[in-house]
């Protein structure tokens, strides 16, 4: 498991290493080379290291990802309120302690307060509500 993940990180480094462009790519090239070397060294270290990677649960990571992506997608389309309620509801499912009603109340209240704060006080150009007609 450890090795697999390190290898993944590794291949990522190599990907960058080969992608560098000439000319202004001088330093990126140096950095990528160093990265590759260091990645290799860490990888070698990991071979000796018999500590296991801590197990990870997929759902919290996934739900936070989906929540944020949906916020990005919804904000220009459905407005701040809908996007924020969605964000909070989806991300709340990551934690086992959340119950539906309090989460919904939390979502609505923070969407309204957040909207007031950012849009009204700070003047962030975001629509609060969905817009009809476009």
């Amino acid at each position: 498991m450890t090795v697999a993940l390190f290898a993944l990180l590794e291949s990522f480094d190599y990907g960058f290493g080969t992608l560098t462009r000439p000319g202004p790519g001088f330093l990126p090239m140096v950095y990528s080379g160093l990265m590759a070397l260091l990645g290799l060294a860490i990888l070698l270290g990991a071979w000796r290291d018999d500590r296991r990677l801590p197990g990870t649960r997929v759902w919290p990571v996934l739900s936070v990802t989906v929540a944020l992506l949906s916020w990005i997608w919804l904000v220009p389309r459905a407005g701040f309120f809908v996007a924020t309620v969605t964000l909070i509801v989806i991300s709340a499912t990551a934690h086992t302690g959340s119950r539906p009603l309090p989460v919904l109340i939390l979502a609505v209240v923070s969407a309204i307060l957040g909207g007031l704060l950012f849009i009204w006080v700070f003047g962030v150009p975001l629509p609060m509500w969905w817009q009809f007609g476009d």
Partner: protein
Amino acid sequence: MTETIANLMHGFSVALAPHMLMYCLIGATIGMGIGVLPGVGALATISILLPFTFKLDPTGGMIMLAGIFYGAQYGGSVASILLNLPGTASTAVTALDGYPMTQQGRAGVALFVTTIVSFIGGSIAIVVMVVLAPLVASVASQFGSTEYFAVMALALVAAATLSPGSPLNGVAMVVFGLLLGTVGADATTGFYRFAFGRMELVDGLNLIAVVMGLFGISEILVNLVTGGQSRTIRARITLRSMLPTREDTRRIIGPTMRGTLVGVVTGILPGLGPQVASFVSYATEKKLSRHPEEFGHGAIEGVAAPEASNNASVQAAFIPTLTLGIPGDAVMAVMMGALMLHGILPGPGLITNQPDLFWGLVASFWVGNVILLALNIPLIGIWLQILRVPYHMLYPVVLMLISTGVYSIRNSGFDVGIALFFGLVGYGMTLLRLPAAPLLLGLVLGPLVEEHLRRAMIIGRGDLMIFAESPISLISLTGAAALVLLMARAGLRTRERIDNPPDKKIC
């Protein structure tokens, strides 16, 4: 000397203007309120609150940010003393003895000592800063690209090798940060690098988005995955229980002073920060103590020394950040990033060009410390209430603050995507025990390093000997090389690496 005092008076006149005082107060209060939340470290707090300062003028914004920063720092200590949930590596040291004190029912004393000692450490460091910063600036104004490059190289190497944890991982992350710093249009030729056809990347990665991802989103993920941190606080704190005994007072004086000294020195040196300061001062006290066995079981020295040192170091770290434009740790890197967003380039000219900003900021540091002192002691009860907010009600709201905050910087949903991406990267890094702070430092310094290296090469006509001609650059580069060698030797000698930070509980 008289000039310094006059400048300082001017600074106070800036910082004590009612609206500046208000910014500082608001910043300190909110910073404290968010910083005290379990699992939200100082850096995450600052990055969440950063967008709020953008609408202010630079001086006001920086003063508010400094307030936020102090509040967050102190809030982190409160969380680590009461709940053993440190948000950062430097407060992890405080938790070593602070939490046992809570278990012994002496939480009040620990909190009180933290407040007082932080104030003392901070105040002394401010005095040092007032005296030293103009001197450093006048030396720095002689710096050419060669010297800049050399000092930055030293800072990066120091940050990578001396931070707690494996030095190899640290170096790898600095290089990763430098690589990320090359994203965007090349400063010399305008060539687009790693832009992947996205116009949003031409200006480089948005620093704030990266910080929010690395330190905000990834912290939430780590907390969610490791699950239930719902610890109840049993400590009941009355004003009376906060007063240290005479014995306590006697025992903290020495550690406070030594801690401050360690803090000031580590703060000034490039590449070192509060983390190193708290670790070193804790270790020093343990060695000097006549009863080292008490450490880890609620020794008051173990709270006083790292807290004094941590605050002093933070304060002193502003010297290289503001006068050289070389931040010493991740927090300073964010502060510098914030300055640049306000259109101010930190450097030797800052003190003379922006006297209002510089002296106002120095004065507001002290004002901020006083505000915290006044705020903390009476409001401890409220902080305890905040600590009782269950995490599952909290993190969705923090996510909302992050996404909206990142969006508001450039009104760009793409940046929120960047934050999400780095949140995932940061989470992966935590799993692999790769430190995030060196990465950030590399990212901030990356473009500067490249620019100065190229300029130095042009001046030296491609001859590397140019770096050996100036004493400052020679010393810095030799120092950096020595650190690398030391690290390699230590790494070979002890294959058993001590992986320090148990601050993130990974089970």
